[in-house]
């Protein structure tokens, strides 16, 4: 199997699903170009699975449309959609061998026996399961079942591939291997893919685009880099990676430039990104990533220009990195992450240090 055709585009427009009076998916729209991988990322219960099921056609949306390759398939039954699905619990047919599981979609398409044999062989080779073809699903490990599910979902060259928490049931190490494997497979096949996860690392590692969902609504969609570096709101900033989020207001600094002042008095210049800078006095939120907080442990540091004098209130050693909890003079808590071996490595609880960050690392969020 190879990328014979570029994958179809997937477009979801104003998708909404209500159960009774409960709106589970609320006006979700996005567009995914062919051969790209989009991950829907959100906490449990945010409506990811519901969104995916609408796209697969297992249940009808309450409102909105689903388009594949520009074609409206909103009312088309699932078995005519040509969309491959990898289920969270794999959903392999327990009474069929691995080979018969993978052959299933091809048999449904009434392909010639020869062709089926060839393509099943290729698909099994792709996930390195040739030697397990005659086993039943229950005779395989979780990781192997996962790969069978993947082979079965792509063997018929679907126009779109959907994966619901494909790695959720695997242990951490296997998950990391499979992230890379799935990504490679997806790129080799050039298949348009929508994946669902609540694991932010998985989303960042695997995706071309990440769409963050919360409470049934799309919070932000963008490349992993965009999302991490330019979170659109507090939820995204908080959900993706660790964050220092400070609440306060806009103030003017000595030179008359706008700056941020937290409710506890910490003052910092900020970067508004593409947003317009609010007027002085407006309430504001900023986010600072812990890895952008530099710690200067020298006693004399406070005298050397801008910085925030702090007391170290906690240290966590995590091998390659160290986490510091700092308390600024006004009482603001700031989390800092430092590579082991940096200047701050020897800091202890109670030490006086100076924390610094660059203006562009202090991002303004909508209040």
């Amino acid at each position: 199997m190879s990328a014979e055709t570029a994958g179809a585009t997937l477009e979801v427009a104003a998708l909404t699903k209500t159960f009774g009076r409960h709106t589970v998916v609320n006006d979700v729209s996005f567009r995914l170009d062919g051969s790209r991988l989009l991950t829907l990322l959100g906490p449990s219960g945010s409506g990811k699975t519901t969104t995916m099921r609408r796209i697969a056609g297992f249940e009808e949306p309450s409102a909105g449309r689903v388009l594949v390759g520009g074609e409206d398939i909103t009312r088309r039954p699932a078995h005519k959609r040509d969309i491959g699905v990898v289920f969270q619990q794999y959903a392999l047919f327990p009474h069929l061998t691995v080979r018969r599981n993978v052959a299933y979609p091809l048999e449904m398409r009434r392909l010639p026996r020869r062709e089926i044999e060839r393509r099943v062989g290729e698909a099994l080779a792709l996930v390195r399961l040739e030697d397990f073809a005659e086993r039943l699903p229950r005779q395989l490990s979780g990781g192997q079942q996962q790969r069978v599910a993947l082979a079965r979902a792509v063997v018929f060259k679907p126009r779109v591939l959907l994966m619901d928490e494909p790695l959720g049931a695997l242990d951490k190490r296997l998950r990391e291997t499979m992230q890379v494997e799935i990504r490679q497979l997806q790129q080799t096949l050039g298949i348009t893919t929508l994946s669902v996860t609540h694991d932010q690392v998985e989303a960042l590692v695997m995706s071309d685009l990440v769409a963050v969902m919360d409470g049934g609504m799309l919070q932000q969609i963008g490349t992993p880099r965009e999302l991490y570096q330019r979170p659109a709101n507090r939820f995204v900033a908080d959900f993706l990676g660790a964050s220092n989020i400070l609440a306060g207001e806009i103030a003017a600094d000595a030179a008359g430039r706008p700056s941020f002042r937290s409710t506890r008095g910490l003052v910092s210049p900020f970067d508004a990104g593409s947003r317009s800078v609010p007027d002085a006095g407006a309430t504001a939120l900023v986010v600072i990533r812990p890895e952008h907080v530099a710690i200067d442990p020298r006693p004399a540091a406070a005298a050397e220009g801008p910085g925030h004098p702090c007391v170290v209130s906690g240290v966590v050693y995590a091998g390659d990195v160290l986490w510091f909890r700092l308390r600024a003079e006004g009482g603001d808590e700031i989390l800092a992450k430092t590579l082991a071996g940096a200047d701050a490595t020897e800091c202890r609880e109670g030490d006086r240090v100076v924390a610094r960050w660059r203006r562009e690392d202090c991002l303004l969020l909508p209040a």
Partner: protein
Amino acid sequence: MSAIDTLVRRHGLTTCLLLPPLVFLAAFFVVPLIEVVRGSFFAPDLTFDHYARMASEPLYLRVVSITLKIALLTVLLCVLLGYAAAYLIATASPRARQLLMLCVIVPFFLSTLIRNYIWMAILQRSGLLNHALRDLGLITEPLALMYNQTGVVVVMVNMLLPFTIFPILSSLLAISPDLYHASSSLGAGPIRTFCRVTLPMSLPGVVAGALLVFIVSLGFFITPALVGGQKEMMISNLIDFHIRQVLNWPFAFALANVLLCGTLVLYFLYARSVEGRLPRTAFP
């Protein structure tokens, strides 16, 4: 320390819990069973006469073949109707499901005898069914619905339907809904999903139900006695006849042993066919 404590400690809890039912079965089932087997061979010296008589007289072969025929017909109808009913229950909303289950269970509370009499009221020459059909103008002469095999099979199916409904229902309910979604996402419409997923996965329930019905049918007594005709005697009725009318107990024992052996053979065939080929539970 009590005697029970000592027992449990020495032999393990499982053994101790098994002991009372085992003693009960030994006293009231195994001992009489041995007596039945012995009684058919020794009168008082060893003899195979009773078995030879069974094989040589066409009447008895006829009873056996009628018994098999009625049992098989009952199984067939129970499986077909039971599958349809189980499927309906399995796909109903939880609320409707409860109601339907109740409809299946409630007749069970009625005594078998009463149910047979009710059926007689329905099926007899001047019964409800014949009246209704005549009033509708569908027939002029009453149909013979009773005192023949038709009547026996109809009533037996009614009695035994739950024995197929419940095992089939439980194997249907054990199928994860995800499998249906998977099948349709892979390109199978509802009919092919049924043939390729639902049916094979519920087969253990079908086989279990069919076997249960068959075994119970072979020994069915009340229905053929009340609804059956003189010529449609089943093997249990024949046994009863020899015990109560002819008072030839050794021959009745021999008949009972043939029935028992047939049932056991069936059971082992079933156990072997199920072993290894079907998933141990519907879900691994």
